[in-house]
């Protein structure tokens, strides 16, 4: 690991001033950045440790019925929060389906939002990667990368965003509060992550020195309550990144869908909000035909970026099944394997 300097600032202003320097990076839970520094995929010269900044570690109710979550709240504490479990259960299900207990104890809200792609070519400094090194091309293109994107990718980059947390947040129109050299501003979570285009190294809407200080979940999304689910398909049922995931929420009255939210994970460089699918559901009866039609709409623009065409049909089925799960409502108790398609099968039999 390259040598670096370390600063533990005591205010947001001090942190922003230090991190605005070239070569600086914010350090929060460390679960992603320190790993990338070990592989050599990241090499900051200065780490600005924001984990002790005051005022960023609380979950507070908003007047509209939503929640405001400080950027340094640990993933495990978000998942444990009673109001979060009651009003935004699919956020909790997504968080608990990710990483391991120890990583969820460390990883922060802000860090999860900014976690980097798990594309193996991005993580390997010897590989050409235009996301890591501007203009370097893409060695991952046409490789058999099961994690690679099928929506919104470009010839310059096929990487997918690995976050589970961000998928329901995109569906719920979450807002990200940012402090930076130019003051405070909000960015919609759906606009936080950039599609690669010709500039894959521009990964987010954040300018140098800008720091995520909080996340707001608007009260409008709390109305879905338990009729919201997260479903995650992965190579094994725990401690793995999503091949494809879906966050779905429905409001049904009188046998017809009044409001629908759908977002997909593992398929693009950003959590993929499927607004066409949502529009297709309005007024329909909540049945398998409507869910399949919505899933078709969600994946209409999808195309393989290599040997990953299977993900398109997998994403359709995952989206349709997540919608069906949302219509049925979340169980009273979180499944032991959150977001797993095998949650109701029970313990595997071992020899």
């Amino acid at each position, binding site marked *: *690991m*390259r*040598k*670096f*300097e*370390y*600063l*533990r600032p005591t205010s947001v202003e001090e942190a922003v001033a*230090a991190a605005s*320097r070239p*070569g*600086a990076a914010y*350090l929060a*839970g*460390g*679960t992603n950045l*320190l*790993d990338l520094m*070990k*592989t050599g995929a990241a090499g900051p*010269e*200065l*780490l600005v*440790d924001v*984990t002790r900044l005051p005022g960023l570690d609380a979950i507070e109710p908003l007047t509209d019925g939503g929640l405001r979550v400080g950027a340094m709240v*640990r993933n*495990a504490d978000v998942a444990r929060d009673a109001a979060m479990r009651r009003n935004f259960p699919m956020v909790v299900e997504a968080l608990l389906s990710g*990483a*391991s*207990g*120890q*990583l969820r*104890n*460390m990883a922060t809200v802000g860090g999860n939002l900014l976690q980097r792609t798990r594309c193996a070519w991005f993580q390997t400094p010897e590989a050409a990667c235009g996301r890591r090194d501007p203009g370097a091309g893409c060695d991952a293109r046409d490789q058999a990368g099961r994690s690679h994107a099928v929506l919104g990718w470009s010839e310059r980059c096929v990487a997918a965003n690995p976050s589970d947390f961000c998928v329901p947040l995109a569906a719920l129109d979450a807002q990200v509060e940012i402090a930076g050299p130019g003051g405070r501003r909000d960015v919609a979570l759906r606009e936080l992550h950039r599609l690669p285009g010709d500039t894959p190294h521009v990964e987010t809407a954040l300018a140098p020195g800008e720091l995520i200080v909080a996340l707001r979940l608007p009260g409008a999304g709390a109305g879905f309550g338990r009729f919201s689910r997260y479903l995650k398909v992965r190579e094994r049922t*725990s*401690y793995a990144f999503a091949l494809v995931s879906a966050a779905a929420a429905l409001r049904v009255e009188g046998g017809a869908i009044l409001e629908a939210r759908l977002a997909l994970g593992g398929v693009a460089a950003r959590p993929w909000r499927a607004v066409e699918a949502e529009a297709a559901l309005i007024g329909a009866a909540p049945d398998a035909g409507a869910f399949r039609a919505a899933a078709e709409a969600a994946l209409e623009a999808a195309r393989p970026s290599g040997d990953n065409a299977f993900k398109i049909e997998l994403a359709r089925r995952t989206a349709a099944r997540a919608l069906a799960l949302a219509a049925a409502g979340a169980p009273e108790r979180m499944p*032991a*394997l959150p977001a797993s398609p095998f949650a109701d099968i*029970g*313990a595997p039999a*071992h020899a």
Partner: protein
Amino acid sequence: MTDMFPQQIDVALSVNGEAVEARVPAGRHLIDFLRLDLGLTGAHAGCEHGVCGACTVRVDGRSVRGCLMLAAQAHGAEVWTVEGLSETGEIADLQEAFVARNALQCGFCTPGMLVAAQELVASAPAPTREQIRERLSGNYCRCTGYEAIIDAVEAVAQARAGGAAR
């Protein structure tokens, strides 16, 4: 380098109940600080990328990856390793159950397993086997002795809850 900020950091923390002060390089990971600087070799440096869980230690009441945390970040923290948890007797029943059920073979993963298992059993009074499985999924046993490990954790959870161990 910006040459404006330190590369050597002074830290003061508590390790297994004892006050520790040290000056560490910014790049010193907590697991290496514990093992190499303090001689606490119970927690292991396995994959060193946060995957295997062998380096699991307790920081401020929670189990964390010692390999994905800087020693500098532990300034002011209360750190417990398997040595300390053994000396206080906190995990004595887990250790006995691991031995009784042959839940360790080479033993490399065991310190991390014990710290993770203790957090689970202390926070969930009657975990199901599925819950134990999920919570230990971040700790790899390269001998693949998982069933015996789950047996041991389940037995301790039941015993602490007052039920008869299977």
